[in-house]
């Protein structure tokens, strides 16, 4: 009995603290990846929080310089087809990208995870129906789905975030539900039941801490994917409407600019997307490796 009590009182938590401790002295490739990703991300966070400190010009001011001026001492990244400063737009773009992608991922987490919990715990018909719905959404090409929803909702920051969030809901649903099914069978939940713990307590104290590591990884990778999806939607003209500075939208203009041979209004927004997505991918993949020793690379 002593042993079981101990198990009940100490479900495997403290993962995050342990992780932070490890990251101070990276030893595996995965840990280096997390550190590099966090460093890269913090640059973007800074840009997103204080764009006015860094950006030399107003990002939406038209005719600051000549149209499509190549990079020069006045406009480090040149100007776009409306004579706006590319550097300033690229810096302000970080704000939209981070805002939309993280809120989309949070939204899907907030919807998907509880659904997975309930579905996994209760089982039965509800579980079967929900699983079928989620599997259907999951199997469908996510970008096509996001396009359809974004088209219905119309352009705008909140609408894009909602459109993107729909495609990740099944991911959280599956992760959490899978975890619930495993944990439900495990001893310490049995023991928790035996000492009279109620279902919500069990979910809060045992299921969530266990699902947490994989959810952190999934969340980070979803944000990475959301940045790409947001850019894609804006590129198709279904995302953030002008003149709000947005990388994908700037690239949409690129389609027209290509033939003129101006590389700078295309290159810089794109490279920002690559770097931001890379930051989240590094963190996500690295964490996956750190949290799952089987994947660890010496």
């Amino acid at each position, binding site marked *: 009995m002593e042993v079981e009590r101990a198990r009940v009182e100490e479900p495997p938590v403290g993962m995050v603290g342990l992780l932070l401790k490890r990251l101070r002295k990276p030893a595996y490739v995965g840990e280096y990846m997390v550190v590099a990703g966090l460093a890269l991300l913090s640059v973007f966070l800074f840009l997103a929080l204080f764009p006015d400190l860094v950006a030399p010009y107003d990002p939406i001011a038209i005719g600051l310089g000549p149209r499509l001026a190549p990079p020069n001492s006045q406009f480090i990244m040149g100007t776009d087809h409306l004579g706006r400063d590319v550097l300033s737009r690229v810096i302000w773009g970080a704000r939209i990208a981070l805002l939309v992608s993280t809120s989309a991922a949070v939204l899907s987490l907030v919807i998907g995870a509880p659904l997975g919990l309930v579905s996994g715990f209760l089982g039965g018909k509800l579980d079967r129906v929900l699983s*079928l*719905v989620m*599997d*259907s*959404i999951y*199997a*469908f*090409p*996510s*970008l*096509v789905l996001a*396009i*359809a*929803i974004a*088209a*219905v909702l*119309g352009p705008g920051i909140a609408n894009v975030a909602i459109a993107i969030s729909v495609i990740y809901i099944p991911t959280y649903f599956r992760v959490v539900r899978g975890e619930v099914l495993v944990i439900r069978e495990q001893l310490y939940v049995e023991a928790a039941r035996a000492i009279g713990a109620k279902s919500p307590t069990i979910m809060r104290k045992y299921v969530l801490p266990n699902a947490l590591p994989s959810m952190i990884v999934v969340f980070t990778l979803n944000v*990475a994917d959301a940045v*790409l999806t947001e*850019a*894609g939607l804006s*590129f*198709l*003209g*279904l995302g953030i409407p002008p003149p709000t500075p947005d990388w*994908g939208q700037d*690239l949409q203009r*690129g*389609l027209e600019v*290509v*033939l003129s*041979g101006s*590389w700078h209004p*295309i*290159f810089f*927004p*794109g490279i920002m*997307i*690559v*770097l931001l*997505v*890379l930051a989240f*991918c*590094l963190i996500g*993949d690295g964490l996956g490796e750190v949290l799952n020793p089987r*994947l660890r*690379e*010496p």
Partner: protein
Amino acid sequence: MASLRYYIITRLLLTIPMVLLLLSLIFVVLRVMPGDPVNAILGPKAPEEYKQQLRAQLGLDKPIHEQYIDYLVKLAQGDLGKSLWTRRPIAEEIMEYFPATLELTLSAMVIAVLIGVFTGAYSAYRRNSPADHTLRTYAIVVYSTPIFWLGLMLQLLFGVYLKWLPICGRADPLMEPTRITGLYVLDSLLTLNFPALVSSIRHLILPSITLGIVLSGIFVRMTRANMLDVLRQDYIAAARARGIPERLVVYKHALKNSLIPIVTMMGLQFALLLGGAVLTETVFSWHGMGYYFIMRIYYRDFPAIQGATVFFALLVALVSLIVDILYVYINPRVRY
């Protein structure tokens, strides 16, 4: 093999609820779409009686559940309705646009698999070498690259600066081959039309490389992970202990085993491939299903959007079925 047939039928039946569900979802979602399609066609200032007439003609005056049942009944007969924009049957339009997407996705898949599988296997075999680190970096960077941006950059480099390759369309004007399958490369070959062959291959290169490169990152990662797993197995050590040359150990014994999960993966990536195709087709004005889908969204041609969506759902279901059958075929351990 009767049991294999049974398996396929079961599998097909299982895809029906999925397709039905997606179809209903799209149907409802499109009905709440803001913007009246009738307005979009006739213009908001058209006289009300014309609008009513068109609404009745399109069945839009009926209650939504009747529209839904009508739609299902017609769908079962292979009728996807008529486009609001072109007034042509949507099924016919899809058949016209789909071969372009098929051509693009197939060649992109070939490129992705060729790059991904071989470099992934090599990466695993030379684990932790500089080559491995380079390839892992390649995989993650490529995965982080927006496909439309890569397309634009390739257009700039090879189309605008170097002028080596065309950057839009599927063939030079008046160079299209006689349509047989709709796959230009194949049609040119079938009709022995070499100018058309050259033209269509030149047009295919940039879009398929764009899509193929972005997809290859995933293949590098997955192949590497599978290979690492396989290379740890006893039978690999056993093969080495029999003096089998390392080249054969890696590319025959190990790769053959890693390919089994990779086939499954190809199926899973197909949805991603379709999404990528939408963007690639937009960048390169490649008149395939993605281009069709996006254009009809701009025109608010919702029977066409719906038809395209249903078609995508069916396609995904079909591909996953094919992959499952292929899996049974290539894995000697599974027999139905």
